[in-house]
């Protein structure tokens, strides 16, 4: 397993609805250093996919899903939550540190919330917390 470096972009996994909020972010500079991967529903996200991204030296994974009770597919966001927790546990266990994967609930209108999250993630990465 290669050492985690900061040479790659952080990954945003988002569902179709939360991707609309990411697209509506006004200050596009905030999105620099992130690459967005859109899934039909956050419930499609697999632990393997998260670990694969970390293995490919992406420093951070941000998962955006619809608010609870608002998933178009009933419980996709709850499934994603469990997988994110599992991925973090695995990271902790294999010694690369938990907290590399963060999940937030964002509705399609919450562009300002996405901006705040992106700022926090950026500080976290640049501040060397990862």
């Amino acid at each position, binding site marked *: 397993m290669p050492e985690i470096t900061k040479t790659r972009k952080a990954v945003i996994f988002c569902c179709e*609805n939360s991707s609309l909020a990411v697209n509506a972010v006004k200050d596009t500079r905030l999105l620099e250093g992130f690459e967005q991967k859109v899934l*039909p*529903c956050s419930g*499609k996200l697999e632990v393997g996919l998260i670990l694969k991204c970390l293995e490919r030296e992406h420093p951070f994974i941000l998962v955006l899903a619809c608010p609870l009770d*608002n*998933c178009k*597919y*009933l419980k996709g966001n709850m499934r994603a939550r469990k997988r994110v927790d599992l991925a973090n546990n695995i990271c902790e266990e294999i010694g690369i540190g938990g907290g590399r994967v963060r999940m937030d609930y964002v509705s399609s209108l*919450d562009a300002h919330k996405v901006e705040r999250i992106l700022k926090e993630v950026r500080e976290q*990465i640049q501040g060397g917390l990862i």
Partner: protein
Amino acid sequence: MSKFLIVGAGISGISAAEILARKGHYVEIIESTGAIGGKVNGYACKATDSCSRCGVCIANTSLAGAIRNSRIRTRTSATINKVINNHSLDVWIEQKNPQIDYSKCSFCDSCVNSCPVGCITKTTRGEFTQYIFDHEKCLLHKGKACSQCLENCPSGAVEINGAVSDMKISAAAALIAIGHENYDARNKVRLGYGRLENVFTGSDVEEILSHQDYLYRSGEDVAFIQCVGSRDPEAGRNFCSSVCCSYALRLARVLKYRNKDTKITIYYIDIQNFDKTFTAFRNELEGMGIDFVRGIPFSVERGRTGKLKVLVPDGGAVSSAEHDALVLSTGIAPARNSDRIADLFHLDSDESGFLSSPEKNIFVTGTCSKPLSILDSMTAAGEAVRFISGCGYGEAEIPEITPHETAFEVRDIPLRRDVLVIGAGPAGICTASALKLMGYPVTLIDKNNIKPEEDLAGVDFITGSELVSLDGSVGNFIADIKTPRGIMNFNFGVIVAATGTENNGNTVSKKGNIVSLDRLGEAVSARKRRREASAVAIVLDLEIDETRASTETALKTALEIQERERYQVFIFCKDMRVASPELERLYQSSRDSGVTIIKYSGRLSVEDDGSGVIIEFDDPYLNRRVVVQCIIAGISPGGIPQKADPALMKLLGITGDCYGQIQENNVHLFPAGTNRPGVFALGSCRGEHFGPQILLDAGAAARSIDELIAPGIIKVELSNVVVDQDKCILCLTCIRSCPSRAMIINSEKGCAQSIAEVCQKCGICVGECPAKAIVLPGYEDTKILESADDAGNY
């Protein structure tokens, strides 16, 4: 082909237009302002980590879909000058140019970039993008011959025909959906809006919270004042606006969630029950530390500390409190141009300014007809369209389904037209007869041997029968029904569940002088007449907050008993749920007839002492414990939320919510749907008990069913999930995890398989499959991982 005119491009008008267009009609929408979307444009998403079911996101999705429809033409900044409604409806309008035809627009921003004075603003909210012109700045309106936006538009979506153009639109019918204006809080001078800093209205707060986390600083102390301009006979507005409690409570929850240090107080008269999850919602709010204070402040001044000092009536005295910011929950008032539109279209206006139409080909919907929430407006718009279609204006051309470019094969799957309705309650009967009128063969079954009051001629009504097994999928369900003549096999296209709920009853024992509310009238009659006046109690809110439906029953019963001789009725409740104009009137008339309403707080105890009933409670006004003796007490049917039939839910393959009621599908989809395509749920099994709302939902459901099965086929793109036969280990995980019941076992191949017309392409099964046997086309792992700028430096 008929053409319809819709006045107002708010959520009501747009939803109605979208349905009409899907039915094959052409629709012209006239909007007086420069923006499409109306009031919804200024509303914030009020979700914390969990959705608060406000419906703003779904409204934006609906707006986005509608304006791109080629049958809908929206004209913004347009005014109506003349209406002639003789044999046909002719309307003369004046519109300000440029206009954008969104069915052609590719949202490329060329117009924004090419405008020499920057008069075009692009706004994006969720899926919904639009361009708004500032006519003050526009060179065209300054007499110059600018047409840069038109020349630079690559798709020919911009139209310019002089600065202002006049035109005549002829339509078969018109739908008026001009919406509302918020009550002007400046009229309440003593509450300080417009006079003192940091006094906001609810809509100001919506606007602020849609782009920032707090009102004016973090950790503030905010108070909400309810019923500003609602339930206020002095202001000539003796009705409940029904939306203010919902938005205020949701906004309060968001403020508290975003900053735990925010202190929130809500001043109220009665908190209305606005959603089926209301009790849980209110408990959550109280658990978060939000203060509910009964009483509406009558004066707001700047105190010595610089904070806003609020005076509130407290029993006989006055108490004061200080807050950093105030939010006035203003009610719904008539739109600014309401009088003008009413004159032009000869509409009737009631004492509160709500419109209705006496003309045959003019219809009114949305908040200009009565106070409605976003989701209720969308349902009402659907019902209005059904009404218009029912009036013979419905001759539409069959909409051609324009194939969008797809790499996948598209297959036509035939649908059966037969509909099964389970449950012959009001919701079931209403849906069955609506569908029968539309010409569908309807089978109505009910467990009990009941005789319907309505005329159900033409509906195949089988009593004493129930569904025993169900197979197949949308359009082709195979059902076994146990009838008194044995088990019979039927085929259906669509299934409607309207089974009602099992009455669990509440935990307070009903015996002796304590009876259930629906039996109170009989029980009072059965008693021996006494010479002196007797007190009769109706106890509400005992275990769970009452709904509009149970409040209606309580008020009707109270009024009926009060009008008998020598009875005095007391209603004990925590809050009076009168969130509809009819209920407010009923409440008023029962008070006028002498019914005494007593509001209690905390626990109330009802004890039978042999000769009568003793009711003990805490009175929030007197601040002490009060004991009332009555001869008999009726307690609300209670035990709500009652469960829907779990066996039936399992049989139908649909999921329940936290109360065991059939889940009304998540707000992205239409209100009557369930998680399984082709299965609909209505009425109290879905958590809706209020009669008028049930009828509205039933109508809307009939319309959605019509829309689904009318074409006779479904066009299905074969981009559903694919199962690798060799990898599948038949663990059934996909079958359990699929939200729409699209997975089946193919016994020939010995592996799981998805049904194309049911699969929603969400990929949940892909994520769950332990053998990684399932692939969602277009979202293979390799495709997700590959990225053009993969090697980009951070």
